[in-house]
């Protein structure tokens, strides 16, 4: 609070007149609020009972949640889920709304300003589940963990629900009044003191509003900043094309792919589409299988599926790029990269054999020259037009964001900024440390921050305006290929949030402007005479037809590369890599419990970030998991716990951004360490020459798999011996299709004491393609959202009590310093001879007539015998009351078709039985059979690479039955005669025979 008061000090004379009025109103409303009978009852009756719960942490947490939620909900009063005038029972039922039947609406989720098309399931006006939009180019029906978890972001009880001025509750009218007086001053001098700071803007309507603002105040400036920005991509394009262009990759057409530190399957606006395209090109039946080479400093999901992965420090990737270019005849000064020569030679030979259908991709974290070299190589190989397409930049106003933010900071520091409006974003937290944004911010006279929660930046601003979630407001956004989606809201703002359009409307002097109006007006002008029909179609489909950017054919200037030739430096010592967190990204999702508890794909850490180091470095510095070290660079430093990750380049330390929030909500605060204080504007992605010092402290990290076993390799060795993950070379498979089956032991089916089950109707089954799975976690969160799975917290995870129904098993294989890693989604296997069923004393888990292993929560007494006897350990137990039964907003979020489990019962994957039953009801009403593909489980729907197939194995024409007949199909632990219904397709590798040792 003191910092808030400080924040008010420099602002000076404009405060006093309004202050008393606001103060009085504040107190009056608080009293009114405190006097409500609900609150009195709550205090008088609830508190004494709950007081005892302070004694134990679990009860206390619940109590605090209850208390906090009550406060939060009391604040919003009527909560405005429905407009007040309609809070009456339906006398006449609204069209389309049938209680119990969900409706689906198309919308899109903006992430880093770029859109992902979604279909949102809505139950009686409550959005409950996110699916991908099959018509959207970036989705094709799939989604990722960020979009899946956005539903929790919507209902997050920690979202801000009041306008605040310097920490005190205030009103929109007072805000408008103060804004108007500030704008009046600006209008008098052409807006010289007005600055607008946003993230990347692709929204055409928002861009138009910004243009209008800049025209109205010619002296004002628009700045953009994303901590995980794509400056390198655009600068690299500028280098060789002379102008910024966007690159679009066609992984479905590429037969040989070389990734230069690009995690294209997991990061970036098109990752979901990339995963789909890439998986398609890997399926063997489509003729030639693609081959992937990856060079990267830190293990990524893309590296995990590579045929040839090379771990190299980040700064040496440039040398590899130069070497590749040189070997392909592009001039540009090639240093030799010892230890990588063989890899490079193999890649070059492969690329040369695949002119026109190969692809070289550079990562966002690589400097512009690497991008430029990739462009040159793609040009030289004739890939442009086939696997590579160029378009105009996605951003409506493409700028170098680091420079953009830098110039804003300079202006602020020189006192040239009087009015700063920040739309979303949290620059106080995530700006490069050398900018010292927080300090510079203090010299701005009036600072306004629009954001969904009160964060570090809100604290440093005069006005905090609660922002609307994308599911609450209208908008529009472009996808990776330029396609526009109209964002339509599914619910009125739960916490009274305002959209960027509204705030810009206020800046433009139209305070009553709604987001819907702004967006519609913009598109009415764009769509022309037929606009109403087009608008309806666009909103319905989730895409505006014909808005994809046409391909460009920019001229490549190879000479520019020669100019950059001498810039290769090879810094010595250790480097630190700054990467977005796989779960909370740049920190924007830090208050999302689903994402915090989601095991990071490679480390399997939850609720924490760590400094990832290679086993070699760990040995050298005698560090162990959990040792806290001080990472320092010059006088800057952060303290971080160590995590040893096989596959990390020997001299690289990876830190994930986005944790260690000082203010962001109850979930985010105090989780992990903040890596931003080490990140400088000229070293956004990696900094060489860092020092590591042991502090002697230790930090306890919650890891979900093999906490202490990675170093010894015991778990991976055992996994290998047990043939859990089966894989082989494509050539070997072609010469002997039985190779996968020969790896394990089959069991004669009749060897069971009990009579076999009969399945006269359907028999549900699932196949998971390990060749397609990248381990991206989309299914895990989709399952959590669909099935009302609770979050348990760090301590519970450390105790081994996480509740996710899908566990993605991760195994390392081979040398500890240069391993391969594989992912294997593990869910209830729905065994024919299920070991859990026979040991349950009360028949709470039983076999259905369609072969599902069903869990009857009401009947479960919680002996946990079923879990003990499950060889796959996929059952989850409610050891405590994990589900939040009290927070009202979270009640709105739940899937009404799935039981909310209480304390003391077992749960597990049901094959989304609620979806099976929904399809069964529809089919029965229509008097027909359930068709193949009609039932899509939540995990299957979310999977970007279509690795999961669900269906009826009794129907020999179904996709799942055909996959089960595949020679790659195998069951895990077949030797136990459990006869799992969930089977796996073995992973095929396509190694280059010239690189024999892989």
């Amino acid at each position: 609070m003191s910092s808030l008061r400080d924040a008010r000090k420099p602002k000076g004379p404009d405060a006093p007149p309004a202050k008393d009025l606001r103060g009085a109103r504040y107190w009056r409303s608080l009293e009114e609020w405190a006097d409500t009978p609900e609150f009195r009852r709550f205090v008088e009756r609830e508190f004494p009972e709950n007081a005892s719960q302070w004694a134990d942490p679990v009860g206390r947490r619940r109590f605090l949640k209850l208390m906090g939620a009550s406060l939060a909900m009391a604040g919003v009063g009527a909560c405005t889920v429905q407009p007040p005038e309609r809070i009456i029972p339906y006398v006449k039922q609204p069209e389309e709304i049938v209680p119990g039947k969900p409706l689906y609406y198309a919308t899109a989720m903006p992430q880093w300003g770029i859109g992902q098309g979604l279909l949102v399931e809505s139950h009686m006006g409550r959005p409950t589940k996110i699916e991908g939009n099959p018509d959207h180019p970036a989705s094709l029906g799939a989604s990722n963990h960020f979009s899946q978890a956005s539903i929790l972001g919507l209902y997050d009880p920690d979202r801000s629900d009041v306008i605040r001025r310097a920490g005190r509750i205030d009103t929109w009218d007072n805000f408008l009044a103060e804004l108007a007086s500030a704008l009046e001053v600006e209008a008098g001098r052409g807006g010289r003191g007005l600055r607008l700071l946003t993230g990347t803007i692709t929204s055409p309507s928002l861009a138009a509003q910004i243009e209008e603002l800049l025209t109205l105040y010619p002296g004002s400036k628009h700045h953009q900043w994303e901590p995980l920005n794509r400056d390198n991509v655009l600068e690299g394009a500028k280098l060789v094309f002379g102008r910024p262009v966007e690159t679009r990759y066609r992984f479905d057409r590429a037969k040989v792919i070389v990734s230069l530190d690009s995690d294209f399957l997991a990061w970036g606006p098109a990752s979901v589409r990339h995963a789909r395209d890439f998986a398609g090109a890997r399926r063997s039946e489509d003729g030639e299988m693609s081959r992937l080479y990856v060079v990267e400093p830190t293990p990524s999901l893309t590296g995990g599926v590579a045929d040839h992965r090379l771990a190299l420090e980040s700064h040496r990737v440039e040398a590899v790029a130069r070497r590749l270019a040189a070997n392909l005849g592009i001039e540009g000064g090639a240093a030799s990269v010892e230890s990588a020569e063989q890899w490079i030679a193999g890649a070059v030979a492969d690329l040369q054999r695949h002119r026109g259908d190969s692809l070289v991709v550079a990562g966002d974290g690589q400097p512009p020259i690497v991008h430029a070299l990739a462009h040159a190589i793609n040009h030289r190989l004739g890939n442009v037009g086939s696997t590579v397409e160029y378009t105009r930049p996605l951003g409506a106003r493409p700028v170098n964001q680091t420079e953009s933010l830098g110039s804003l900071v300079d202006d602020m520091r020189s006192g040239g900024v009087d009015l700063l409006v920040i739309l979303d974003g949290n620059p106080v937290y995530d700006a490069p440390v050398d900018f010292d944004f927080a300090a510079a911010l203090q010299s701005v006279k009036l600072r306004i921050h629009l954001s969904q929660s009160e964060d570090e930046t809100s604290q440093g601003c005069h006005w905090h305006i609660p922002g609307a979630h994308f599911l609450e407001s209208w908008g529009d956004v472009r996808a990776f290929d330029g396609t526009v989606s109209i964002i339509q809201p599914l619910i009125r703002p739960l916490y009274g949030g305002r959209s960027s359009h509204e705030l810009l409307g206020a800046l433009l002097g139209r305070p009553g402007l709604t987001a819907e109006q702004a967006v519609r007006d913009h598109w009415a002008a764009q769509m022309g005479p037929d606009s109403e029909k087009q608008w309806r179609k666009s909103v319905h489909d989730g895409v505006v037809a014909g808005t994809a950017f046409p391909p460009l054919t920019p001229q490549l200037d190879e000479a520019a590369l020669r100019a950059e030739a001498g810039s290769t430096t090879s810094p010595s010592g250790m480097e630190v890599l700054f990467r977005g967190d796989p779960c909370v990204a740049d920190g924007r999702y830090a208050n999302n419990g689903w994402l915090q508890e989601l095991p990071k794909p490679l480390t399997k850490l939850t609720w924490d970030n760590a400094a990832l180091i290679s086993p070699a470095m760990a040995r050298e510095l005698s560090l162990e998991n959990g040792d806290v070290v001080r990472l320092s660079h010059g006088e800057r430093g952060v303290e971080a716990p160590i995590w040893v990750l096989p596959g990390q380049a020997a001299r690289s330390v990876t830190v994930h951004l986005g944790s260690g929030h000082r203010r962001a909500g109850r979930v985010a605060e105090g989780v992990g360490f903040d890596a931003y204080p080490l990140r400088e504007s000229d070293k956004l992605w990696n900094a060489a020459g860092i020092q590591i010092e042991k502090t002697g402290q230790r930090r306890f990290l919650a890891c979900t798999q093999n906490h202490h076993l990675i170093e010894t390799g015991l778990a991976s060795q055992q996994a290998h011996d047990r043939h859990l993950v089966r894989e082989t070379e494509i050539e070997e498979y072609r010469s002997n299709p039985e190779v996968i089956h020969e790896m394990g032991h089959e069991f004669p089916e009749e060897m069971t004491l009990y009579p076999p089950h009969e399945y006269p109707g359907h028999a549900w089954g699932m196949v998971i393609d390990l060749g397609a799975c990248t381990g991206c976690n989309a299914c895990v969160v989709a399952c959590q959202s669909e099935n009302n799975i609770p979050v348990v917290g760090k301590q519970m995870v450390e105790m081994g009590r996480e509740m996710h129904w899908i566990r993605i098993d991760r195994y390392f294989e081979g040398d500890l310093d240069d391993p391969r890693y594989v992912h294997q989604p593990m869910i209830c296997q729905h065994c024919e001879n299920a070991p859990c069923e026979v040991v349950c004393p009360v028949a709470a888990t039983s076999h259905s007539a369609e072969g599902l292993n069903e869990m009857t929560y009401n009947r479960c007494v919680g002996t946990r015998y079923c879990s003990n006897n499950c060889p796959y350990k996929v059952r989850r137990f409610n050891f405590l009351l994990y589900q939040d039964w009290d927070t009202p907003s979270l009640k709105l979020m739940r899937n009404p078709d799935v039981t909310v489990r209480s304390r003391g019962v077992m749960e597990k994957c049901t094959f989304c039985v609620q979806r099976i039953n929904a399809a069964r009801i529809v089919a029965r009403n229509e008097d027909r059979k359930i068709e193949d593909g009609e039932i899509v489980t939540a995990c299957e729907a979310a999977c970007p690479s279509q690795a999961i197939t669900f269906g009826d194995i009794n129907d020999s024409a179904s996709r799942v039955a055909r996959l089960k007949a595949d020679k790659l199909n195998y069951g895990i632990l077949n030797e136990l005669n459990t006869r799992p219904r969930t089977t796996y397709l073995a992973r095929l590798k396509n190694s280059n025979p010239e690189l024999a040792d892989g």
Partner: protein
Amino acid sequence: MASRPELEKPPVIEPGHTYATVTDKISSIVLGRHTPISWFIGFAISFTLFMVMMYAITYTLVVGTGVWGINIPVGWGFAIINFVWWIGIGHAGTLISAILLLLRQDWRTSINRFAEAMTLFAVACAGIFPLLHTGRPWLAYWLLPYPNTMGMWPQFRSPLVWDVFAVSTYGTVSLLFWYVGLIPDLATLRDRSKRKAAQIIYGIGAMGWRGSAIHWHRYETAYLLLAGLATPLVVSVHTVVSFDFAVSLIPGWHTTIFPPYFVAGAIYSGFAMVMTLAIPIRKIYGLEDFITMRHLRNMAKIILATGLIVAYGYTMETFMAWYSGSLFESFMLENRMTGPYWMMYWALIVCNVITPQFLWFRRVRNSVVTLFVISLIVNVGMWLERYVIVVTSLHRDFLPSSWGMYAGTFWDWAIYVGTLGMFLSLLFLFVRVLPMISIFEMRTLIPGEKKDGGH
């Protein structure tokens, strides 16, 4: 004490006793005004621990089983370990009273009463755990087969249902056996007590026993029949308990040797517990005449014999892990011996296999202090054995991705130590208000009175 054991079996009661002295000596402990101060101290400590247990149980019920250390993959922890341990301890009582009775081992007479009481209290302690360890203990009665509106039976294929039958039968038979054995002594106490209240209470318990010939006749028949009923239970209860493990498919549990090995282990730990209790009691109450060195030596021999069976069990487990050629089995054993719980495993080997070997020596068998120490070590060892079986089998089973670790929490320990408190509290009350040695049976042992020792 016995100078020439090779010529004649040493007496089970020291010379010089008559009917009157036996009755006086035993009944005065109960009816006498003077309660030793050590009783009060011991009872206070035990009762405090008992209250700790009540608190911990309340806390567990209010908050949930999550206050314990159990997790996925280790779904069973202290509760099951303690349950098996306590049930095992109970076994010695039944063995002493039933099987030794049928085998006409008259030396059993002086220890059977409190061994039976021990059985009963151990079963009571054991019974707490299966109830409490369920996620929703208030619904645990669903394991019982009773007509209900749900139209549901228990799931009879589950060993846990078998457990319900086995343990409840065992508890019932043990209680009956113990009570029937008490009736003539209760009548003695009724007749000898000077206070009205005691006369009434003991009188009710004595059920109108007048010591007539027909009473004696019916009594002997009933007692023998109950002994016959209890005898199979000695074998069956722990066999069924072992099925909880053996019927599952977890490496380290799924073993055919479990039933005999569990029964032997139960008797092993049971006799160790009888010894642990008998040695201080005979000292404090001056009962060396009744619980003689011969008793202790005999029990030591049984401990040695059952200890050897248990050791054989360990050996066979190891052998089969290797001989089966099963990767899972051999890994399980390797993990037990060298994995994170290796100390537990080797401590159990030292306690259960190495320690009883000292009982081969007569000097050890004749040393009360040494016997006491050995019995304590065996008790610890048997607890460790259950810990190793339950925890190490579960914590690393089939899929390495699901491996985890287990450790008991404060509440686990509080309940475990608390049951020890409850057990001892009940024992203290028992020795104070009931004859801890069967008076009428001891009278039959007096030399020259009834040589054959029959009834």
